């Protein structure tokens, strides 16, 4: 089989551009890029569930927001020890997925949607009401970015934080790429296509879905941690349905199971949110209209029609 070098060239070119951009952009736009990369990770993590397992989670903000809160809480109220806080927050995000997965994976389809939504909204309610721990509606402002002085790495300047985020973004892409090409990834797509056949073939369907649910939770948690440190604050909206629904839209807009699609979707929505917020306060209204338009005009996503062609590059 003749393998095309085009994708490799494109990836290298893309990375080169991403590496150079901070040299030519103002810090405002570098910050915007950080947000794009973070939501790219978040959207990729949801697509592992939606695109590869066929599990439409409407509560994916649960892991994202929990990790953000844990990282923020520890940094502000316990000790600003970034590596430990990072690990603890990642663990917390994964643990939320592990607990919610136990409940949600007992159901399918419409129930799965509703239950993931309800469970994550309960966490939102907790963050909103438990003022003494979470700061309530105001959230927790003033969370400092990590300063890894022993490594001589201060992530406080936005450019340093950008490269830090970019490195993790690339790492997530590589891990995700390896995962979806592995036997495990193939099994997930088999389960997406027919659970009963996979059971008959001898696959423990539940175990596969549960592991995937936790992995997706961990990647979402990573995005949440990057997000809280970047914004220096966390608030209940990071756990809210609006956040879960936004990342779902990113995946659908780009095209599920296309790898590039969720990243593209994240880029478009983050940029659009930024532009729209610049001249009107009606972002939620515009976002609502985008939902309706996407479903009516491009239900398979922007890259959906290219799925066959993409599959040559990214076997899935």
């Amino acid at each position: 089989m003749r393998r095309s070098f085009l994708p490799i060239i494109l990836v290298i070119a893309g990375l080169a551009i991403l590496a150079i951009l901070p040299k030519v952009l103002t810090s405002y736009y570098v910050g915007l890029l950080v947000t794009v990369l973070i939501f790219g990770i978040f959207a990729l993590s949801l697509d592992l569930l939606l695109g590869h397992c066929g599990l439409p989670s409407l509560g994916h903000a649960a892991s994202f927001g929990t990790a953000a809160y844990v990282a923020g809480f520890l940094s502000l109220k316990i000790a600003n020890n970034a590596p430990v806080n990072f690990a603890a927050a990642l663990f917390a995000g994964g643990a939320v997925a592990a607990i919610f997965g136990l409940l949600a994976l007992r159901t399918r389809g419409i129930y799965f949607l509703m239950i993931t939504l309800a469970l994550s909204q309960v966490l939102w309610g907790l963050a909103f009401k438990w003022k003494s721990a979470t700061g309530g509606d105001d959230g927790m402002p003033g969370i400092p970015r990590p300063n890894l002085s022993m490594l001589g790495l201060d992530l406080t300047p936005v450019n340093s934080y950008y490269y830090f985020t970019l490195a993790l973004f690339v790492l997530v892409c590589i891990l995700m790429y390896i995962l979806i090409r592995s036997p495990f990834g193939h099994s997930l797509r088999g389960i997406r296509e027919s659970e009963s056949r996979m059971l008959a073939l001898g696959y423990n369907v539940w175990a596969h879905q549960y592991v995937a649910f936790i992995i997706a939770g961990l990647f979402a948690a990573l995005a949440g941690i990057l997000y809280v440190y970047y914004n220096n604050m966390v608030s209940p909206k990071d756990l809210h349905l609006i956040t879960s629904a936004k990342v779902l839209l990113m995946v659908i807009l780009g095209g599920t199971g296309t790898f590039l699609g969720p990243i593209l979707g994240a880029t478009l929505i983050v940029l659009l949110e930024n532009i729209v917020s610049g001249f009107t306060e009606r972002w939620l209204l515009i976002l609502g209209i985008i939902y309706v338009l996407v479903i009516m005009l491009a239900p398979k996503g922007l890259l959906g029609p290219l799925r066959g062609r993409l599959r040559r590059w990214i076997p899935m």
Partner: protein
Amino acid sequence: MNFWILQSLNGLSYGMLLFLLAAGLSLSFGLMNIVNLAHGSYFLVGAYVGLTVMERTGNFMAAVVVGAISVGILGLLMQRLLLRRLTDHLAQVLLTIGFLFILGDLSLVIWGGVPQIIPKPPLFEGPIRIMESVFPSYRLLVIGVGIVVAIFLWWLQDRTAMGANVRAAVDDEEMAGSTGINVALLMTVVFGLGAAMAALGGVVGGAFLTIFPGQDMDVLLLALVVVIIGGLGSLKGAFVAALLVGLLDNFGKALFPELALFTIFAPMAIILAIRPTGLFGRA
């Protein structure tokens, strides 16, 4: 007055509101297989419309009727023009999330961000004395309305031709269609009825809860929990679960204000672990 009696009364009246809200959500799923996340918006928009009518006319009945009918029509249109074409659950969810955001933000533009309250009908403003105890009469009215609506729905479903048709359509849409029932029209009507009931809940509730932006999502969560616990498509389930959630939520808020939602999370988790399809849901 005794804390427990008063809180139980508050919980029950809140539960009745949740029933008004969840009945439509549950039916639209049971009958049409539609997941409607804009259902909480019907509650909020209904409450705001009721507020405006009350301010203009001072007539509470008019507020209830106009609120319910206008939102009922909104529901009819949404189902007829958009939702009906979507068979995929995920597409329905995204579309209705879109409407949740649109309706929520438009309400914010029209009615502002300050929490508001609909004046109670004068007859039910004060407390009422029964035996030695004093009860807030409006809460009793709400409970009464909930019971009347529940009986009406039961009558509609079990004792009328329309109800028989609905049940036939739930069991087997194709067969119901072949016996001459206009299933598509029936679905639109039931969907509109569900929206109108949610709006009724909004107006009635707007007189003892405050109305505020974001309430659409708060009540949506509670309605979802009710439907999850009660079982999709079951009116009986919606009724029982609504009262349960209403009581739990109310006592939770009163006793553990910081952990309020956890008091409904626990029963939901237990139900899910034992019966993933809910108390009265079909497996």
